[in-house]
């Protein structure tokens, strides 16, 4: 039996000829060759490498969709799958166990076909004196792609023991290891990396939050440029994918990057020349606005199932035309925005923005008085300011907590959150992480509140535009039901606001923040 037994991986140099080695063995085993297998490996992952980051490979090979443990190559889950689509969602998979295993890797992001690589596998059975198979030796090589030179060819030997024959396997591994061409033990992860490399991919190469290295003693102008270049990278990485409409997170990451840019620009006073600053502030605000409707529609469509389930069964079907309409609007909106992304106006904006960030603007005391301040000083003072604003505004919120109050506090929290994230490399990670997670509790409460408000408003305006025809009555009543359900949810969230605020407004958080502030005393 081969399952549930951990194989061992060894890498070998190009000069090693395993078939020849096995023909003249210095081992107590004999070897029986099996026919050569050629396999096409289709590698999948989400755009942000969620599977890879959780030490898993998602592959379709031999009409099987498998989740492989990168440590040992064992299948965590596998099911028959005849297609090799460009992308798929966990819920597209019929086999329930596979679908839920994929869901634990990614809930929102689609799995995209990253590339296909051909491999050859030659297997030998190692036989003992009774001609009993005691282990399997597999030689797997990657067939070099046309555009790649053969010099990077990678081969891996896998030794898989048969249950109850561990000692024999160790003996075999020892024999193999004596060969100088043997370059030692490796892992399935390395083999998979080589497969991805053959497909021209670098695992983990995209992250929605690229890490930035900041130095506390550098000028804030210098650091600000670095901080602004990082969301620009994210903007560029996502723009080509948005129009393909594969999943909602390309647009989401794009929007977050735009918002981060705006947030940095808003916090930095006296660092960049004011005219330029206000020009880009406006440009990025407009860019963000262009995506607002799209994002709202995305959120609706993502929650379609949840919305349906808020209603009694009989009232669910009348919602279908509403979602259909939403889908059509989304399509149209996406078309318009995709066109804009290809426009000269957009291209020039980002080009100028890039060169603005690349340029070394000399500091002038009149227009950019703060440009030469130390990064650490600016970080401490701006975080302090943003935090105090959250506390002040939060404490001012009355017992009933009005919509306007909560909306405004949400923005304050977002500003603080971004600052904590921007300047994270400058501070002790542990304390900072704790502050962020406490802030997150408050942000979640406010986020849900605002989302539910926006959704209700949208439904209201949709309702007011429905024609007064008899066949619209079921739709109108379902929408009414939905508004009521969302209203009730929102009021519960509102009631929980003060508790959420208290988890942030307390001595422990204050102590943690003071620890951050005192870091540069």
């Amino acid at each position, binding site marked *: *039996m081969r399952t549930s037994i951990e194989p061992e991986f060894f890498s070998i140099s190009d000069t090693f000829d395993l078939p020849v080695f096995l023909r003249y063995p210095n081992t107590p085993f004999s070897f029986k060759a099996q026919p050569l297998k050629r396999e096409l490996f289709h590698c999948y992952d989400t755009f942000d490498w969620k599977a890879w980051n959780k030490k898993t490979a998602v592959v379709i090979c031999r009409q099987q969709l498998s989740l492989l443990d990168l440590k040992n190559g064992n299948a965590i889950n596998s099911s028959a799958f005849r297609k090799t689509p460009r992308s798929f969602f966990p819920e597209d998979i019929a086999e329930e166990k596979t679908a839920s295993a994929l869901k634990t890797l990614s809930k929102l992001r689609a799995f995209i076909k990253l590339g296909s690589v051909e491999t050859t596998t030659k297997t030998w059975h190692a036989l003992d004196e*009774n001609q*009993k198979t005691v282990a399997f030796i597999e030689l797997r090589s990657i067939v070099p792609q046309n555009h790649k030179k053969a010099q990077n060819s990678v081969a891996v030997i896998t030794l898989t023991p048969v*249950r*109850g*024959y561990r000692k024999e396997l160790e003996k075999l591994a020892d024999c193999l290891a004596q060969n100088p061409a043997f370059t030692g033990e490796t892992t399935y992860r390395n083999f998979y990396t080589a497969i991805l490399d053959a497909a021209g991919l670098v695992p983990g190469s995209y992250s929605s939050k690229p890490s930035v290295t900041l130095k506390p003693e550098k000028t804030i102008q210098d650091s600000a440029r670095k901080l602004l270049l990082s969301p620009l990278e994210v903007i560029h990485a996502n723009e080509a994918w948005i129009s393909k409409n594969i999943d909602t997170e390309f647009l989401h990451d794009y929007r977050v990057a735009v918002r981060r840019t705006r947030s940095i620009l808003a916090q930095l006073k006296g660092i960049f020349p004011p005219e330029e600053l206000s020009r880009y502030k406006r440009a990025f605000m407009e860019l963000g606005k262009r995506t607002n409707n799209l994002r709202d529609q995305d959120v609706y469509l993502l929650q379609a199932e949840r919305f349906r389930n808020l209603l009694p069964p009989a009232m669910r079907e009348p919602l279908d035309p509403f979602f259909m309409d939403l889908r059509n609007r989304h399509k149209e909106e996406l078309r318009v925005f995709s066109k804009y992304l290809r426009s000269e106006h957009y291209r020039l904006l980002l080009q100028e923005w890039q060169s603005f960030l690349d340029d070394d603007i000399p500091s002038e005391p009149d227009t950019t008085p703060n440009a030469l301040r130390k990064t650490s000083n600016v970080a401490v003072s701006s975080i302090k300011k943003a935090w105090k604003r959250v506390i002040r505004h939060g404490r001012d919120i009355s017992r009933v907590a009005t919509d306007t109050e909560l909306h405004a506090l949400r923005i304050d929290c977002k500003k603080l959150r971004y600052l904590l994230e921007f300047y994270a490399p400058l501070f002790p990670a542990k304390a900072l992480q704790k502050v962020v997670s406490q802030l997150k509790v408050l942000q979640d409460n406010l986020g849900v509140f605002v989302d539910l408000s926006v959704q209700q408003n949208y439904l209201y305006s949709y309702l007011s535009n429905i024609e007064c025809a008899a066949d619209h009555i079921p739709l109108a009543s379902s929408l009414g039901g939905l508004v009521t359900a969302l209203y009730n949810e929102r009021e519960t969230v509102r009631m929980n606001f003060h508790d959420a605020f208290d988890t942030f407004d307390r001595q422990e958080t204050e102590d943690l923040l003071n620890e951050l502030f005192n870091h540069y005393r």
Partner: protein
Amino acid sequence: MKTIALYSIKGGVGKTASAVNLAYLSSITEPPTLICDLDPQGASSFYFRIVPNKKYSSKKFLKGDTKIYNNIKGTDFDNLDLLPADFSYRNLDIELLEEKKPQKKLKNNIRELNTEYPFIFFDCPPNLTLLSESVFTASDIILVPLIPTTLSLRTFKQLLDFFKECKLDTAKIKGFFTMFERRKAMHREIVKKYSGKKRFLRQIIPYNSEVEKMGIYRAPLNAVRPNATAAIAYQELWKELINEIGQ
């Protein structure tokens, strides 16, 4: 977990051949499968070319769980494992006598294995001893291969009488005919009278020299000669059995 014993008081009726082939078929349709060789002659171990570890003995077998677990070996076939028999198994009866509840020993000893194997087969030695009683308690189904002769039927009746006497569940017992030769009138008559009737499965295994050659192939017939008449018959027998279990 379902446990199936291949058992007969008589020798040479096709117990091991049936155990090996049915276990192989089970490993394909209901993976993974374990076959426990309980016969000190170790015929099924021989068929799979498996030799027990040097330190393995009947004493370890009686200790159960982890001792058994560590001595299970993989066969050359995916999802089919075997617990090999050791020659010391010839003393199992005497050793069982010293145990507290010998009849329940086997059942308790394999309890841990039920998470891993949906099907476990016992290949039993040909006698009626304390070990046999332990097998009867541990098994959900007791498959009894019978050559269609009067002597075979007599031992089958002896087994049923023994079950009744010991208040064991006779419903567990399922006979089936092996080594059937159409040219023999007695075979034809007995098969006609009993096959598919109470306590008998319908499918019969015809005499086939390929079965004897399993000793040369040292592999299940269904793996190396799946089109042999006996191999096809075993496949049908397995289908019938799975059907019965399902009901």
